[in-house]
């Protein structure tokens, strides 16, 4: 951790009004997307990527990171006011948030959600700032076998946690890996599965694919259900949490922030898991444990701190190893790649300036989120009332224009639509979507490193079984698969 570089990046952001404005737009947009049930943080980041195509990295990244850190918080607004978590990460917030709203304490719950989310987010970022350079120092010595084993582990974890059926997750991941082989072969440059189309020489562009899978498919689902916007009458009597509430919850907020960061750093374990673990721990350690679930402010503080800290944790494997911690960070990798940056250990060698822009942007974005959410809460509450008959077509338009804006190419527009249909059908048939995207990112990493290793070792697989790091990774992969199988077997026996 180089404080000089960090302060330089922080100064660059704070003295540039355009960057601050973009962070503000990103944060406000993220809260809106998160607050609307059915629109996920992943969709928010996917929809915003096209807005950054023409921007320099120092402008694009702060805006995207603003959405990234605020969309999870946005989910708490509908969780507290509507009893419907805006994002899966806000599921535990409902437990005490909605009872508080019913008691007429919605403003108190929302203010605590803002405070806890900000502190939790900052805890996650601080861990990320200090831990990721250390991990990257270790990872910089990795060679092809180690990178191949990391890709295999990353894919396995994501597949195992997405959906109820492990086979469907593996099928989804394998199809994603096959899709990643479309285009020119990375070693010999031979065109594979391109059907003679030059548009496919570089494979499918990541951004149209992720917009289609995560945003268009959700818009089709919105078309199905015809949900009307719900009128919410909730007056914000205060703008900030009281000192009494802060004193009462501070220890839960910090502890939950650490829990969220650690869970977030495990690829695949997302905010929904972290918020329940933090809620359980807060309930266990609180003097008021019997009152949890009846509408107490401590019950809002713990999950909100944890789910926002997950972002910082999930960024650690993404930045240091190039392995996304969850679907949102997978989308963020796509955004970075658009701007010519490949996350992974080499990023700390080749793009140190960008690394520190990311660190500083996340710190600033969390602080901006505190003020935007506190002062703009009455407006965000009104946003929940927007009818889906307006919102859904707007999402479609942004997706299609986003696909077009990438290269001014209609092939990308049709890609967006095609993957939207694929994503929709996958949702209908309970096939998990995330493994496809992660396989598209990790597939080339797995193939290139496996083939490079085989070239260097004259076709021998021995390096995979002699490197201690590979052995640890493969052991972890096997343990994950076996424990997941045992858990599913136990669940099945329990249900019968």
């Amino acid at each position, binding site marked *: 951790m180089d404080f000089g570089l960090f302060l330089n990046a922080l100064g660059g952001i704070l003295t540039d009004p355009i960057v601050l404005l973009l962070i503000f737009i990103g944060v406000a947009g993220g809260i809106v997307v998160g607050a609307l049930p059915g629109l996920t943080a992943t969709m928010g980041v996917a929809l915003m990527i096209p*807005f950054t*195509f*023409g921007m320099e990295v120092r402008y694009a990244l702060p805006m995207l990171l603003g959405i990234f850190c605020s969309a999870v918080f946005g989910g708490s607004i509908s969780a507290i006011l509507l009893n419907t978590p805006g994002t899966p990460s806000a599921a535990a917030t409902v437990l005490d948030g909605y009872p508080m709203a019913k008691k007429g304490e919605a403003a108190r719950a929302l203010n605590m959600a803002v405070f806890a989310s900000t502190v939790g987010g900052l805890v996650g970022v601080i861990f990320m700032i200090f831990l990721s350079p250390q991990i990257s120092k270790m990872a910089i010595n990795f060679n092809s076998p180690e990178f191949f084993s990391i890709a295999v582990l990353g894919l396995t974890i994501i597949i195992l946690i997405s959906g*109820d*059926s492990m*086979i*469907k997750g*593996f*099928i989804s991941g*394998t*199809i994603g*890996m*096959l899709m990643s*082989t479309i285009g020119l*072969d990375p*070693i*010999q440059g*031979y065109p*594979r*599965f391109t059907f003679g189309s030059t548009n496919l020489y570089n494979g499918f562009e990541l951004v149209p694919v992720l917009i289609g899978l995560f945003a268009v498919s959700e*818009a*089709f*689902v919105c*078309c*199905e*259900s*015809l949900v009307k916007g719900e009128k919410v009458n909730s007056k914000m009597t205060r703008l900030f949490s009281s000192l009494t509430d802060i004193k009462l919850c501070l220890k839960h907020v910090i502890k939950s922030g650490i829990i969220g960061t650690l869970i977030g750093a495990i690829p695949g374990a997302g905010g929904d898991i972290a918020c329940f673990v933090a809620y359980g721990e807060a309930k266990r350690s609180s003097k008021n444990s019997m009152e949890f679930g009846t509408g107490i402010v401590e019950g809002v503080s713990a999950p909100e701190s944890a789910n926002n800290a997950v972002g910082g944790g999930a960024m650690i494997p993404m930045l240091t190893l190039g392995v996304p911690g969850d679907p949102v960070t997978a989308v963020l990798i796509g955004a970075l790649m658009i701007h010519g940056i490949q996350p992974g250990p080499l990023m700390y060698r080749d793009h140190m300036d960008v690394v520190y822009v990311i660190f500083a942007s996340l710190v600033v974005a969390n602080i901006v989120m505190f003020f935007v959410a506190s002062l703009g809460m009455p407006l965000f509450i009104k946003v929940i009332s927007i*009818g889906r*008959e*307006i919102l*859904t*077509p*707007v999402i*479609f*338009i*942004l997706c*299609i*224009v986003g696909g*077009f*804006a990438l290269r*001014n190419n*209609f092939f990308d*527009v049709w890609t967006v*639509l095609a993957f*939207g*249909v694929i994503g*929709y059908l996958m949702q*209908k*048939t*309970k*096939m998990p979507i995330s493994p496809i995207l992660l396989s598209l990112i990790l597939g080339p990493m797995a*193939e290139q490193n*496996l*083939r490079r290793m*085989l*070239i*260097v070792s*004259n*076709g021998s697989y021995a390096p995979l079984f002699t490197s201690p790091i590979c052995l640890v990774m493969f052991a972890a992969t096997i343990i994950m698969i076996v424990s997941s199988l045992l858990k*599913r077997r136990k669940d099945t026996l329990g249900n019968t």
Partner: protein
Amino acid sequence: MKSEEITIGGIGIAIAAYVLYTVSSYPQVKGNDVGVGFFPKMLAVLLIILCACMIFHAVRGTSPHKDVQVNLITPGTKRAAVALLICALYCIFFKLLGFVIDTALFMFSMMFLLKSRNWMQMTLVSLGVSIGVYVLFGYVLNTNLPAGLLAGLL
């Protein structure tokens, strides 16, 4: 979901068979490299095994989703299919009509599809969104959106 899982398994096996057929014509190994078809071939074999497992579970009734009912013909899915058709028409006429007119028509028809019947609101929102997005992408973000029929005006 038995029949759907068998269908998905069948599609997966068909994709894998196509991959295996295609890679058989790829150039053979050069030097120490395992060849351009090595990785896709490995994945295709894996896909066949996985799809066969899914079909096996579906037939035996041991799939975790065996009790999930998938009804692909409901009013909701029909609406989603019409939305897809409108989206396809939107993309087809994107260049010809130009972004502003095409988007306003798209917005209006989608709002109608989603049961909005306030004509004044539909008209104003359609025009507002199409002009707003055009200004944002065309002028602020410098995207070259087609002007179409309004080429002389925009």
